[in-house]
């Protein structure tokens, strides 16, 4: 997996590149918008990490230019601008995800993984399956080992998100943003409580747990 980091802050870029390399990715770095656009246009990358404010060419303009030339490489935008309007602007310009600085590296890693696994034609999917856990999106029914599990609407959406990202680490912020559409940080760990409730419903009474807590990062739903 090859990634391109377009970031003008050398220290931040080096830190991101180092972390990603240690996680097994091949990483290229570039510090200005124009060269970034040039390199990204080659289409050799699996995902791009683009800082919003860049010398030479603004990050959003870069993404818009890429999308205009039919380059569909997933893009994660990094920005110090965290207001909802800023996110909306970033996503409208063609970004696939938006991460506000400063961020925990694990958050970045989790989001990159989510981006890379995306594009499996998820819109057409009507059934999700992780191990013996199955979800019917049309009937809105969940079964594990053939046994029906009753879920509240919000729990259903939480599980759906986890199943769509099965095998990946999903952070609390990702859940809060995608399942609840909240972009603030609730002081109490509300997400943990929701996840533990869901865990009660899908793992209790089964020999193998599916929903795992990843220390210091978030959660992971995987069949092993």
């Amino acid at each position: 997996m090859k990634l391109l980091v377009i970031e003008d802050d050398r220290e931040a870029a080096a830190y991101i590149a180092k972390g990603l390399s240690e996680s097994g990715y091949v990483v290229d770095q570039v510090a200005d918008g124009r060269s970034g656009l040039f390199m990204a246009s080659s289409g050799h990358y699996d995902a791009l990490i683009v800082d919003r404010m860049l010398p030479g060419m603004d990050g959003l303009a870069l993404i818009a230019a890429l999308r205009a030339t039919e380059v569909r490489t997933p893009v994660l935008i990094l920005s110090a601008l965290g207001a909802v309007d800023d996110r909306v602007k970033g996503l409208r310009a063609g970004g696939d995800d938006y991460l506000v600085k400063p961020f925990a590296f694990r958050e970045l890693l989790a989001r990159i993984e989510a981006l890379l696994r995306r594009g499996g034609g998820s819109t057409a999917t009507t059934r999700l399956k992780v191990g013996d856990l199955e979800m019917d999106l049309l009937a809105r029914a969940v079964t594990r080992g053939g046994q029906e599990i009753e879920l509240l609407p919000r729990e259903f959406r939480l599980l759906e998100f986890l199943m769509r990202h099965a095998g990946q680490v999903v952070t609390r912020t990702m859940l809060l943003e995608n399942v609840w559409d909240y972009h603030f940080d609730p002081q109490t760990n509300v997400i943990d409580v929701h996840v533990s409730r869901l865990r009660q419903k899908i793992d209790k009474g089964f020999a193998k747990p599916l929903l795992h807590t990843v220390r210091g990062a978030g959660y992971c739903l995987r069949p092993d």
Partner: protein
Amino acid sequence: MVRLLRTNAFRLGALYLALFAASVLALLVFIYFSTADFIERQTEATIDAEITGLREQYEDRGLPGLLEIIHARSTAQHGNTSTLYLITDAALHPIAGNLSAWPQAQHIRAGWIGFPLEVRTRDGPVQSNALASVFVLPDGFRLLVGRDLRDASAFRSRITRTLGWSALLTVALGVAGGLFMTRNMLRRVDAVNRTSERIIRGDLTQRVPLTGSGDEFDQLAGNLNAMLDRIERLMLGMRQVTDNIAHDLRTPLSRLRARLEVTLLERPDAGRYAEALRETVAEADRLLGTFNALLSIAEAEAGSRRETMAVVDLAEIARSVGELYEPVADEKGLALTIDNDARLPVHGDRHLLSQALANLLDNALKYTPAGSVALRAHGVDGSARVEVADSGPGVPADRREAVFDRFVRLEGSRSTPGNGLGLSLVRAVAKLHGGEAWLEDNNPGLKAVLTLPMADRSALAATRNAA
């Protein structure tokens, strides 16, 4: 003056003046010609009447009678020679009348002749023109009746002069009026420009003066002033926020620095270093949390989100936040009841309102050791009222205002996680939405109240349909 010539107002004024002068001129020319024509016709009518009268006399009394009348009229008019008479024989020898000889006449049109005339007046001979008609009598005698055109031409030249003067006066008045109006307009524009320049130089307290007339210039000035007020408010808000942030972040940053410094002073030890780093990361995270909370408050206080506000359903927001916290209450063994109207349309920002309600609920759940928490959202007297009531220890009456200030935490709550910014955000959000937030006694416990002005019910339906 050069500046005056370059102004738009002057150009407009000049254009109007030109149009005005042209139309006045056209009017004057019309008046002149119609007056001149009227005078000529009047003269002709007089001569015609005279000839008709004389012919009747001739037909009644023959030539001697006519001669007698002519003679009488010529002499009676002595000194007032405006009507001219002359009777000649066939060879044009004068017989009677007040003209000494048959004039060197010029044919004007059928039946009418014109000729120069020398009239004797008290001031000596005067050159004039005459208009006359000739009537040929049956036996070859000719009768000439005419009028001295001196009066007519005097009248005509007087009209010309009058019209000329009025044209001049019109233009003069137009120029003066144009100048006056242009300068007046320029003065108003100048006032705006002067104020703007002062503001550009850095004095944001300047305002454009109003005349109180409520005209377009006053409206412009009023709008400019409103804009300046808003800019000034925003700038003051931003300044205050940066001051506060600088102040508020200094303490935790010093603590962070001290911890690292102390660690460095100690004997090198990998285990202790790792522990210190973990603590530092946790401290940095708390710092970032505080920073984000401050930014949210600043954003709400600055009102920069007001532009993106839409009609949202506060009942739905309350339900959604309540649902987010339901498991938390459950886990803690608290009974959380949510009770709301079907719909509470308010004009607002969904994210900020959610965050404010989350903060209230978070507080209630955090500080209530056992018992119940109720979240209520109802429409009361045209405003949307959200209450978060708990059965906890409550807040003493004299501290219920203070806890809304930044970083204020009650003694005894320091052991619980929190940054003392939750209620500050609630109040900032309430103010942003034109509402209020306060604390009340719940007997026992605490009741936090947030009221917001309710939007039009149909507005919510409209946005729902559009979405």
